[in-house]
């Protein structure tokens, strides 16, 4: 087992233009297993870009990213897609569920892509949806669920592939307080009881308060890295 689940070395992302934009600027970062980490900062500070780089959705201009010791920045597009499928769980700000599938099918879908047999993936999807409190909503489609419920399905989907860690980009941004707290409780419990590593970007103080580590970005650089009890 590697010491760090995520390790970024001298990571930069520059968007060329009339004036080059350094969205991420020479960042060094290590995330250990079981961490519950928030990346915070004002809009445009580079939170989402950093998460995209770590998640293999974008390629760095310079630097390296290692996930459990594997270099991911030099993988081909297809290798990256496969890597994401097997190692990373994603939770997006806008839930991004497949509208034509039920909660159960949305959760199963990622396991289908991993070629897991039907019975096995259905059992795991039901377990995960029970864990996020949606055992009664297995056959509801996204349009029949509230925003908070949809985001909980998204968490179940992110965990379905048994990833090394979960990246969550502003997961509570579209949720009311009650739904946000509910979701945070679930994520914290999964982190604590099942040792799932969460890394999320946010400017939601409710999330920041629950994080055990808070990394603050400004202008693409880490300006503080605080561990809180």
């Amino acid at each position, binding site marked *: 087992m590697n010491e760090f689940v995520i390790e970024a070395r001298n990571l930069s992302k520059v968007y060329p233009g009339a004036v080059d934009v350094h969205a991420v600027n020479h960042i060094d970062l290590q995330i250990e297993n079981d961490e519950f980490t928030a990346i915070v900062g004002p809009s445009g500070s580079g939170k989402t870009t950093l998460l995209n780089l770590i998640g293999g959705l974008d390629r760095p201009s310079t630097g390296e990213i290692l996930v459990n010791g594997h270099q991911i920045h030099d993988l081909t597009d297809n290798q990256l*897609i*496969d890597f994401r*499928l097997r190692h990373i769980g*994603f939770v997006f700000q*806008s839930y991004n569920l497949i509208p*034509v599938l039920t909660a159960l*099918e949305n959760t*199963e879908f990622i396991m289908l892509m991993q070629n897991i047999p039907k019975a096995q993936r259905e059992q795991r999807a039901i377990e995960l949806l029970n864990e996020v409190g949606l055992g009664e909503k297995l056959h509801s489609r996204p349009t029949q669920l509230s925003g908070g419920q949809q985001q909980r399905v998204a968490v179940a989907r992110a965990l379905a592939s048994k990833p090394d860690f979960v990246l969550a980009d502003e997961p509570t941004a579209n949720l009311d307080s009650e739904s946000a707290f509910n979701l945070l409780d679930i994520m914290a419990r999964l982190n604590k009881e099942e040792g799932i590593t969460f890394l999320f970007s946010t400017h939601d103080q409710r999330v920041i308060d629950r994080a055990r580590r808070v990394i603050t970005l400004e202008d693409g650089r880490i300006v503080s890295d605080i561990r809180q009890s």
Partner: protein
Amino acid sequence: MLWKVAWRNIWRNRTRSLVIIIAIALGLWAGVFASAFVVGMMHEKIDSLIKLEISDFQVHHPKFRDEQDVRFFIAEPEKLIEGIRREEGVRGVSERLVVNAMISGPGQSGAAQVFGVDPEREAVVSGLNTYIDSGAWFEGIKRNPIVLSHRLAEKYHVKLRSKLVITVQDVHGEITAASFRVAGIFDTKNPPFDDRQVYVRRSDLDALLGSEGKVHEIAVSLDDHEQADPMASKFAAVRSDLEILPWMDLTPGMRLMIGMLDTYTYYIVGIIMLALLFSIINTMLMAVLERVREIGMLMAVGMNKMRVFSMIVLETIMLTMIGGPVGLILAWGSVNYFGKVGINVGGSAYADMGFAATVYTRLVPQTYLIITLMVIGMAILAAIYPARKALQLNPSEAIRKI
């Protein structure tokens, strides 16, 4: 589950999908039915042409058809006729004298082609006796009966039992004439035929021409038109001194027309499909562009390009394969129905061109199979551009699209 997703995605925009499905169904139906109509019309024309005018195959002196010289008789026809009669599938054989003549009626003269026939044998081959609606097929007049059409009867101002004079050049090159009395008047509803041909007994024309029992033409009718080509070839091989041609070579351009008829349907359906192709591409492109964020998410969470491509292709094929079979079933039903009851196209314009007033739609069964394959091909072709468009999405940008 990919199938399930693709299927459900089709119905996300029910109206749009239904519109394109109906367009595919109607387009295919219209294309196939229009083709079946034209093919049916042409087959009616060909059947009528074979039956009434040219028979399944004919035998001539090699120069007779080009030069129409009365002296170009068929040499030693007896053995050949006997051989033809023995063949299985031969319905009738009619030996004919054929001569271009001048016909004179009361106050009116004109050119015509006179056929000297054995009435009974000719009736079997051409069935012209069935078109007689006034008088009878060589009955009621003992000496020199003649049968002609209503159009010619009107032209020469004659009616039943009226006298007509036929003037021809005999085998010695001498001009000779004889009078005939109208025994029967026919109406084939085929003006080009009716305006040209008159029929007399072969023995009467033989006497006029001095042809001594010889014949210019042997017309053979078969139970199956398809056998005309091989049978004509078979006898042509035995009698290379004669011209023995099947029906498709007796009329200029007929063989070409038959060949075109076989592919006509595919051209018509192909053109309609080309138009439908762009409608489907448009629909699928809209479907992809509406789901940029969703497709981006799928790629982000690990759906590989092959699966994304397959999903879009599957959706397109499903969309097409709903409309396609509906159109083909509609076409099959209507082609079969109108193949039995016929479509009355009426109008003298068709009749003047020698087409039947009732068209029976027809299409060979394998056409449906080939069209089905064409539809599948079109679906795959239509899917490629939208699917490629989906593959070009950058997941990190796509998931943020509103």
